[in-house]
């Protein structure tokens, strides 16, 4: 009998599961529907999959960014897609929805509520994404130089190549595999079958990154219903149990950390009690292809783990949503019965600065002596 995971006070972690996941079709540019109209159908779908509605949700939490939308308080309008009436317990993080899910998970740990609803939305097409993301950088020393995200990722890619732990061919293989797998994902935006040699013959976009190694610009939205204990068992046949979830942040100073490693991912995974050898499916939020190689190492994933069957962020990268979508995609493999142990990862900030790891399993007791704290 394997022991349940325990929390910082030595008490058992409450089993909480993803019971449904819905996402909008990821597109280059959603021009007809505004954010509320994008969210409404997937909110409906996420609830419908488990026969629940907004009033069944004990807690609602969302993730989004004002600067991405180009409006202050932009999360407020999105509430109309849910309909918080009668008044509900609701909160918001100005981060990828994966962190909103983390907040909802901690609330459910208290034991008083049994369900939570998490959603996020992000349209990268309206604004100038390269300028917007530059505003994430140190406002005194770095942002005024307006470094663009591709250039920053290229720094990381070059460092990785220089370390000898990866080649340009390895990078192209990640891209080729991701976009080919995306052919099987109706929600993916970029899906095609190209050979590695074909990709390697492309010109550099920002050396050493070629266009294939860079994420698309996407508009999207995602929603997840979480349920605890028996409630989850009542709602679906194979709840995707969260056996551990944690996150860590690193320094923003790119010169002050080894860009070829992802220490925060390793630490978060350890804290989440991840057993890499048992992971069948891993959804890694790697907007740039070389980052998948870095994350795979950081998580000690072996060759038997299938990475990003959804196509990952190279197939669709709706900023503020892509991390939550990784959790949804990984959970879906358990919900549909095709996997029994999965992993999802989300990232925030340039060059994998902040990372969240979510371990999922079909068996809630799959945690072996783990501590969460």
């Amino acid at each position, binding site marked *: 009998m394997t022991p349940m995971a325990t929390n910082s*006070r030595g008490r058992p972690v409450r089993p909480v599961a993803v019971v449904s996941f819905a996402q909008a079709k990821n597109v280059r540019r959603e021009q007809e529907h505004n954010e509320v109209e994008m969210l409404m159908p997937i909110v409906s779908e996420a609830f419908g999959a488990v026969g629940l509605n907004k009033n069944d949700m004990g807690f609602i939490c969302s993730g989004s960014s004002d600067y991405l939308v180009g409006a*202050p308080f932009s999360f407020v309008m999105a509430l109309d897609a849910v309909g918080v*009436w009668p008044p509900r317990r609701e909160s918001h993080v100005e981060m990828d929805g994966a962190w909103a899910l983390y907040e909802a998970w*901690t609330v459910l740990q208290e034991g008083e509520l049994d369900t939570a609803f998490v959603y996020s939305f992000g349209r990268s097409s309206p604004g100038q994404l390269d300028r917007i993301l530059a505003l994430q950088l140190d406002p005194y020393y770095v942002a005024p130089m307006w470094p663009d995200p591709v250039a920053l990722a290229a720094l990381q890619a070059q460092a990785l190549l220089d370390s000898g732990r990866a080649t340009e061919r390895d990078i192209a293989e990640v891209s080729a595999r991701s976009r080919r797998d995306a052919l099987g994902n109706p929600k993916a935006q970029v899906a095609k079958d190209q050979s590695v040699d074909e990709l390697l013959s492309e010109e550099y976009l920002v050396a050493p990154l070629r266009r294939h190694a860079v994420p698309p610009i996407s508009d999207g939205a995602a929603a997840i219903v979480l349920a605890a204990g028996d409630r989850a068992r009542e709602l679906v046949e194979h709840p995707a149990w969260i056996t551990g979830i944690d996150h860590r*942040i690193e320094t923003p100073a790119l010169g002050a950390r080894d860009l070829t490693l992802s220490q925060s991912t390793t630490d978060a995974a350890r804290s989440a009690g991840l057993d890499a050898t048992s992971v069948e499916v891993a959804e890694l939020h790697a907007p740039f292809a070389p980052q998948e190689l870095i994350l795979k190492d950081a998580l000690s994933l072996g060759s038997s783990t299938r990475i990003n069957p959804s196509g990952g962020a190279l197939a669709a990268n709706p900023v503020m949503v892509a991390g939550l979508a990784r959790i949804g995609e990984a959970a879906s493999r358990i919900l549909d019965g095709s996997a029994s142990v999965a992993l999802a990862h989300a990232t925030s900030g340039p060059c994998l600065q*902040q990372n969240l790891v979510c371990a999922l399993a079909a068996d809630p007791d799959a945690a072996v002596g783990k501590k969460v704290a």
Partner: protein
Amino acid sequence: MERCAVVGVGQTKCQAKREDVSIAGLVREAAQRALEDASMDWSDIDAVVIGKAPDMFEGVMMPELYLAPALGAVGKPMIRVHTAGSVGGSTALVASHLVTSGVHRKVLTVAFEKQSDSNAMWALSVPQPFSAPLLAGAGGYFAPIIRAYIRRSGAPDDIGIKVAVKDRQHALKNPYAHLHIEDISYEMVRNSVMLWDPLRYLETCPSSDGAAAMVLASEDVADAYGSPAWVQGMAMRSEPTMFAGRDQVNPQAGRDCAADVYAQAGITDPRTEFDCAEIYVPFSWYEPMWLENLGFAPEGQGWKLTDEGATSLDGGDIPWNCSGGVLSSNPIGASGMLRFLEVALQVSGKAGEHQVDGVRRALGQAYGGGSQFFAMWVLGTAKP
């Protein structure tokens, strides 16, 4: 649920422009003070929860990324909350939940705004195409609601002035408050320019730079402290900004939130069972309105409590906003946390000159958006 207590608090002096510190310097000042108050070091903290209002106020997107080193968060979990004006309060709640859920034992929570860095008026309402042009500015949204309250309640039209005088007098006893108007008086407020009838200049909040921080700890940690402020109840509620039949004067979300937090803390008569309160009053008339919404007075009668001086530190039986409140300091992202922090100071007996004698239980409330987001907590000297 685990128990949780505030074991340290820290805040910066609020002022129109803190030109002597960077954004990192501002938050670190508050965080450092909170750690010192808690006799802790940066390395003692398990996780950091930071909150602030729209990023347009400083021109930095997702500032937790830039601030991680300044807040000792490198290598730790860090979350950034944004729930509009209530954010300072909801941030404290998110941090507390990390403790009550058993996930962490020592959490540092910080809220700030350095709104002088950008243009606050612009940041509050970046013009949006297709939307109705903004006709009235920030106070202009609330002034018509206040007029509706005055009509409904039949309150005399100088109640707002009395609130402003009281809160500004209280501020003189709080060295951290932004506005210290030494010779504040009823006449001075009444003669100040009318901005959005019925709100006069001196009945509205300033625009401030400032930061607030607290250290929240689990029971085993808090037991080692002399005067921890125990969290006896926490609640949040949201409702839509606009919908048919919405009561904007006495929002349901506020009433539901209060009912929830009172039930947790065993409060049935807030007026007599609380010793003081820190309530988000950015425009004078919100005091009588919140007195009713929070159940301190029956509907339509909140203004009487203000009128008879019940909410004054000087002789009142239920002092509100002894710190000077939002009317005296308003770094938007931090204002909610300042309410929660001031409650902790009162319960721990550390409020100095604006301390209410013998506080055993106090209420902190923050609201945001179009009076639609509410965050509240009850702190007390006794464990829940």
